[in-house]
């Protein structure tokens, strides 16, 4: 199994398209950092426009490395599924397209093993992608913008909130958030892998994955009670942004944040379980479908 995984990772590492994802992340992060370095004030003015008459804030301190990473992740984590799909959706379909799938299947490896190895490789790719994001979006931002307390602007139900987390209480939240994001993106990897079983080139499954993510995300963001109650809990995309839960700090009765706390850990834990459940079901389905599939490519 380890031998197969090494082979799989070797193949991924030799493909030019693997590095597209890393380059894309770097480019997006760098553009963000440049834009905020040049004109972060406008962004702050925008988010704070309704209270700008009541409060004064040192905006240059508010736009710090921690805040930047949050802003970047907020945007980037919507696009990263595409990058994960780029590799994961190629898992089986790419081999079918190249004609190597029939050779793989005629080797003394079970199809179950092959799916598990492909899934493991896609997961490792996802982890590397997130590590790269951590390096660029978090550590590079800290280098460029420095560290300070972090402001979280959030809409909770009917009301908007501004939460402040002190700078010594942030790093562990990012580790947890990146961990959570890994699980969330692994669902995408599993989904792409599943779809790639049915196709003979990777374009179809990439587009299908992206479409599913976009459609579900749109539905997840429609605020209609009937959808909120009956549809959203069943969409995995509702849980993709759960990493933010690690930045929702609990407050005491006076509204003062409690250091080291989470507002709703049970909700995050539940989301994690739901995502892991998705992964298990999708990988199981992939194995079941792939084992019954006639390889005609």
């Amino acid at each position, binding site marked *: 199994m380890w031998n197969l995984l090494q082979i799989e990772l070797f193949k991924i590492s030799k493909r030019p398209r693997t590095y597209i994802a890393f380059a894309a992340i770097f480019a997006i992060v760098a553009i963000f950092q440049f834009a905020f370095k040049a004109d972060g004030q406008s962004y702050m003015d925008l988010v704070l426009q309704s209270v700008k008459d009541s409060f004064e804030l040192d905006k240059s301190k508010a736009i710090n490395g921690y805040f930047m990473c949050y802003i970047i992740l907020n945007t980037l984590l919507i696009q990263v599924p595409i990058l994960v799909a780029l590799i994961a959706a190629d898992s089986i379909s790419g081999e079918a397209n190249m004609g190597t799938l029939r050779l793989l299947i005629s080797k003394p490896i079970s199809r179950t093993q092959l799916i598990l190895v492909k899934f493991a490789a896609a997961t490792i790719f996802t982890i590397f992608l997130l590590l790269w994001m951590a390096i660029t979006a978090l550590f590079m931002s800290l280098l460029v913008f420095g560290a300070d307390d972090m402001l979280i*602007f959030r809409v909770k139900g009917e009301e908007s909130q501004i939460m*402040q987390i002190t700078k010594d209480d942030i790093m562990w939240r990012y580790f947890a958030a990146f961990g959570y994001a890994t699980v969330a993106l692994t669902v995408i990897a599993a989904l792409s892998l599943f779809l790639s079983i049915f196709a003979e080139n990777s374009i179809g499954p990439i587009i299908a994955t992206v479409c599913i993510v976009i459609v579900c995300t749109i539905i997840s963001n429609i605020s209609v009670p009937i959808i909120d109650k009956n549809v959203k809990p069943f969409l995995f995309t509702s849980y993709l942004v759960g990493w933010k839960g690690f930045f929702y700090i609990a407050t005491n009765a006076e509204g003062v*944040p409690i250091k080291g706390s989470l507002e709703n850990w049970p909700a995050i834990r539940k989301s994690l379980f739901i995502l892991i459940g998705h992964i298990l079901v999708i990988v199981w389905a992939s194995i079941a479908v792939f084992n019954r599939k006639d390889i005609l490519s």
Partner: protein
Amino acid sequence: MKISNYMKTSNSLFFSIGLILLSMSSQAQDATALLKKVKATMDKVNDYEADGRMKTNVTFLKVPEAEVKIYFKKPNKLKIKNEKGISFVPKGAVSINLSSILNGNDYTVIDAGVDKIAGVNVRVIKLLPLDDNADVVLSTLYIDAVNNIIKKAKTTTRLNGSYQLEMTYGKYVGYALPDKIIFTFNTKDYKLPKGVTFDFDDGSESKKTATPGNKSGMAEIVFDTYLINKGVVDANF
């Protein structure tokens, strides 16, 4: 208090009107004198640098207690800084600098009698700006006439709602510098522009607040130390 004054003098209308006018004018002079004394106490401070802690209590703002430095320089420069982190500083907090209210003579002074704050007798004095276009419509000061210090100040503005300062004094009472200020102010409700975030909806219901629109907020500053008249560089403002 004011009403009871009127009641006492209601026996004879003419007499009482005369008395009221007389008492108002003498009291007004009295009040102006008191204000002068207060101002004199405050004038002892040319500048200060203080260490303190600021607690903010606004419904939409979940911020920790901040260690702050407060810089003041005559006539009306004031800055609250959080050097260890970031802080939302209520804009009206500049009026912690009361001398800005007392500066100049372009207001009418009305003596509004006496009251009690935390068991201490205080004189209530209202200031009406003469300029019809001034933002401040009315300021009410509650003055401890023994120490010549302002214990409480309420200010009503045309555009920025009303705010209130409550001060507790300790060892810096001689300089009219409080140990603690509670600043109550009006703020608009915070509304995040649409489309800025995709939030994680954890399924918990948020409790709806009763009054949308304007909210009252509170900031409490506890002063630990003052460095008085040691000079503060302008770069701090």
